[in-house]
């Protein structure tokens, strides 16, 4: 009883009546140019349609359900995606219910959380989903009222005929609407007519969060489910011997199983496992490089002089520029490995039932969890289902499926459903960290103080490409050489919120400050002058929008009263990452003769701001995150394992340490880009530059508080 309408665009619309007579709409994408018009049953729409991106249903009583396909880890996608659909639909937001969709790569597109990419990917598709449904509802109303569709408007789930004052609710119209033919094209709203987008909308899960409802993976329990914990080896080592006699003796422990390089402890509840883990005696022996931080430091310094660097970008003639320079400045910057340390430790539920597997838990990439499970067990991926719980933070850690595989391995061996939980200690020492990196920057300056040459060489430990060769100031300098060297460490690494740029931006923005000061230029003017060059005489590819970068720089400078107050020492930083532009100013004030980090002013251009409350969360949260890790974050390796194993020695930023943060958004009118990451990279640089302005000390390594330059600063972090 449903129909599908062919359109000449690449995206197609499916409409079906729901079992209860409601309207059900989904979009699918295909590269096929001339799809066949075909009638689909509701089951087909629900189960067999391809690449659904969004999915909404309206019931005759006016309830609207929107499925949110992407994992929610605090980036607020579960609220902002449905907002976009509801905007074009003119839905009554108070009647919208949002449900987390399970993994379904047939229905949904790009069902992952990472790279701040969800909103730019889905913006237009979500809008079309809402607009099409609204069109059909208006068409149904036009028929019923016997008026021209153009004379109708919609507001809060009600269609209104202004001149007669007649009104019909969406609920009253869905049945008729679902029998109509979908339009070839739909008109999207002019952004200036948005009534929901751009207004602060609260998290749709708030009520459940504040009342402690089971939302997270760790909260998942099922009758008959076993619990397990895994003992993991230090990096570069393998098991030599296992003595599990004391562990097995703990009441409540049912099994201790050794497999590969792991030992799993299984039991009926969590506490006996924690106790047993402390009593488990495993000795290890070397099986590759057993590294320490001293090794890492030495390796990175040595490799900076290696002859085998990979050239990532080369413009002009760098050697000539440096040979002819009036002045050359060279500096090195370094950052340590860092754990992601989301508040909810790694955990997953798995039930291997012969050839079929049920997976439930917190993952940023449900599809990777499924594929790796299928590969491990040698079964088709269709035999694996994945339900996505809310994630207690991710920061990139849950892009890896290692902890999912833990659960599969154990369930397979004990032939029962099991939830694997990592302790905080497992999480800290278990790996997949932000890589450690060391950079060497050089600038060649002519007599007039112009930067005529720029070199950057990065050495990363399992960092892949540790440079971002096309980022500013590339494009603004005539002679550029950017090189990368990667070292294969036994320490595992993974994307960490704003991969690479979370440290590179600090190093680069600090170095640019050094250069500006060396030529006696104001740091803001120095950057603006370079950007003018990128605009008037670009060199090579310029992969950032010069005007948008200038826009955030000027806004941050103006709002921070840049350079105008002698009592405030300021540091500037600007960075383009994940398609958004963020400039930041850190203010240090002297209080009783001591430097005091008072405020950070941020200016962001992420295009249209979908949900200001969500955006503020991401910008301020990103700044707090960037600041905390630049200040305190450190992981020191000894004998293949980090010394910091929990929050007593691994310091996370706390309430009393956060300065005021003032945020603003540039109304650039561009389509929205992601915000989960872009606010983090500039923060370390803004703070380091402010510390220099206030004290003359240049911090060239993180964490700041552990640098000798920092120890005698007496920088007051606490609020007055």
């Amino acid at each position, binding site marked *: 009883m449903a129909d599908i309408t062919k359109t000449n665009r690449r995206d197609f619309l499916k409409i079906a009546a729901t079992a209860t007579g409601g309207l059900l709409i989904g979009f699918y994408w295909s590269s096929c140019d001339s799809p066949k018009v075909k009638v689909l049953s509701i089951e087909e729409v629900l189960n067999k349609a391809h690449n659904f991106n969004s999915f909404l249903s309206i019931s005759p009583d006016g309830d609207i359900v929107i499925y949110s396909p992407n994992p929610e880890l605090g980036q607020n996608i579960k609220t902002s995606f449905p907002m976009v659909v509801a905007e074009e639909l003119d839905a009554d937001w108070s009647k919208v219910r949002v449900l987390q969709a399970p993994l379904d790569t047939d229905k949904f597109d790009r069902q992952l959380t990472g790279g701040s990419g969800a909103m730019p990917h889905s913006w237009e598709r979500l809008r079309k989903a809402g607009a099409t449904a609204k069109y059909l509802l208006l068409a149904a109303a036009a028929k019923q009222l016997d008026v021209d569709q153009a004379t109708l408007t919609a507001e809060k789930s009600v269609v209104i005929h202004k001149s007669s004052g007649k009104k019909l609710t969406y609920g009253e119209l869905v049945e008729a609407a679902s029998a109509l033919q979908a339009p070839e094209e739909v008109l999207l709203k002019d952004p200036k007519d948005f009534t929901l987008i751009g207004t602060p909308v609260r998290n749709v899960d*708030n009520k459940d969060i504040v009342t402690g409802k089971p939302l997270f993976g760790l909260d998942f329990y099922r009758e008959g489910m076993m619990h397990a914990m895994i003992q993991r080896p230090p990096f570069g080592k393998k098991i030599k011997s296992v003595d599990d006699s004391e562990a097995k003796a703990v009441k409540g422990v049912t099994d201790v199983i050794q497999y590969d390089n792991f030992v799993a402890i299984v039991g009926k509840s969590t506490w006996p496992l924690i106790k047993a883990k402390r009593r488990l005696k495993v000795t290890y022996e070397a099986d590759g490089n057993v590294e320490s931080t001293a090794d890492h430091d030495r390796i990175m310094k040595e490799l900076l002089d290696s002859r085998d660097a990979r050239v990532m970008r080369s413009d002009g003639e760098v050697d000539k520029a440096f040979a002819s320079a009036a002045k050359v400045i060279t500096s090195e910057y370094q950052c340590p490995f860092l754990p992601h340390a989301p508040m909810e430790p790694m955990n997953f539920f798995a039930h291997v039932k012969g050839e079929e597997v049920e997976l439930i838990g917190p993952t940023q990439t449900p599809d990777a969890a499924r594929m790796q499970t299928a590969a491990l067990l040698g079964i088709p991926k269709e035999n694996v289902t994945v339900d996505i719980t809310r994630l207690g933070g991710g920061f990139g850690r849950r892009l890896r499926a290692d902890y999912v595989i833990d659960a599969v391995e154990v369930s397979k061996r004990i032939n029962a459903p099991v939830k694997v939980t990592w302790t*905080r200690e497992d999480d800290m020492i278990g790996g997949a960290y932000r890589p450690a990196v060391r950079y060497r920057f050089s600038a060649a300056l002519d007599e007039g103080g112009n930067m005529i040459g720029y070199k950057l060489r990065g050495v990363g430990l399992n960092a892949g490409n540790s440079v971002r060769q096309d980022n500013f100031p590339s494009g603004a300098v005539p002679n550029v050489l950017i090189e990368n060297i990667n070292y294969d460490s036994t320490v595992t690494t993974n994307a960490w919120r704003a991969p690479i740029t979370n440290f590179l931006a600090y190093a680069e923005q600090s170095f640019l400050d050094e250069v500006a000061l060396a030529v006696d230029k104001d740091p803001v003017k120095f950057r603006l002058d370079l950007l003018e060059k990128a605009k008037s005489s670009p060199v090579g590819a310029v992969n950032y929008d010069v005007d948008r970068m200038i826009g955030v720089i000027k806004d941050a400078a103006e709002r921070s009263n840049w350079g105008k107050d002698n009592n405030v020492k300021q540091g500037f930083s600007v960075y383009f990452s994940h398609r958004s532009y963020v400039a930041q100013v850190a203010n240090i004030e002297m209080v009783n003769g001591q430097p005091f980090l008072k405020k950070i002013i941020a200016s962001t251009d992420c295009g249209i701001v979908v949900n200001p409350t969500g955006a503020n969360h991401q910008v301020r949260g990103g700044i707090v995150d960037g600041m905390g890790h630049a200040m305190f974050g450190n992981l020191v390796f000894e004998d293949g394992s980090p010394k910091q194993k929990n929050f007593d020695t691994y310091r*996370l930023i706390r309430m009393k340490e956060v300065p005021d*943060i003032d945020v603003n958004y540039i109304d650039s009118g561009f389509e929205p880009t992601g915000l989960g990451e872009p606010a983090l990279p500039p923060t370390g640089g803004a703070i380091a530059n402010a510390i220099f302005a206030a004290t003359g000390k240049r911090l060239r390594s993180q964490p700041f508080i552990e640098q000798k330059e920092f120890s005698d600063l007496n920088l007051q972090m606490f609020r007055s």
Partner: protein
Amino acid sequence: MANYNLQINGKQMEVDVDEDTPLLWVLRDHLGLVGTKYACGIAQCGACTVHVNGEPTFSCVKPISDVANEKITTIEGLSKDGDHPVQKAWDEVDVAQCGYCQAGQIMSAAALLKKNPKPSLDEIDEGMNRNICRCGTYHKIREAVALAAKTK
């Protein structure tokens, strides 16, 4: 193993666990009260905060044998319908990002306001400093505590 009679959220509950079992795991594994969270297990982050006789307490390091006769309140029992002023303020200010730390934050805030109904910003900072939020929602936590103090 021993049998413990517990008073949780105004109800009598009974569990049979080892005496060293932390209250956190009794709540989560044995009583199905999973609102109280595990994050560090060593009294460093506050995710597991509950009230014991009204005092904010890290349940991850509180052996069950210590609290057998005490009045315990968890996030599930803070109010009947999620309408404690702190819970309402948390929704109003839209504090949560991932939300994982927030039950602990709310329990800390509720205890703070009970003792000090009109805290200054410094007193809020001081009172909430035991709770870590990895997502960095500190500004909104501060705002929500101040709002709850006003609306109480």
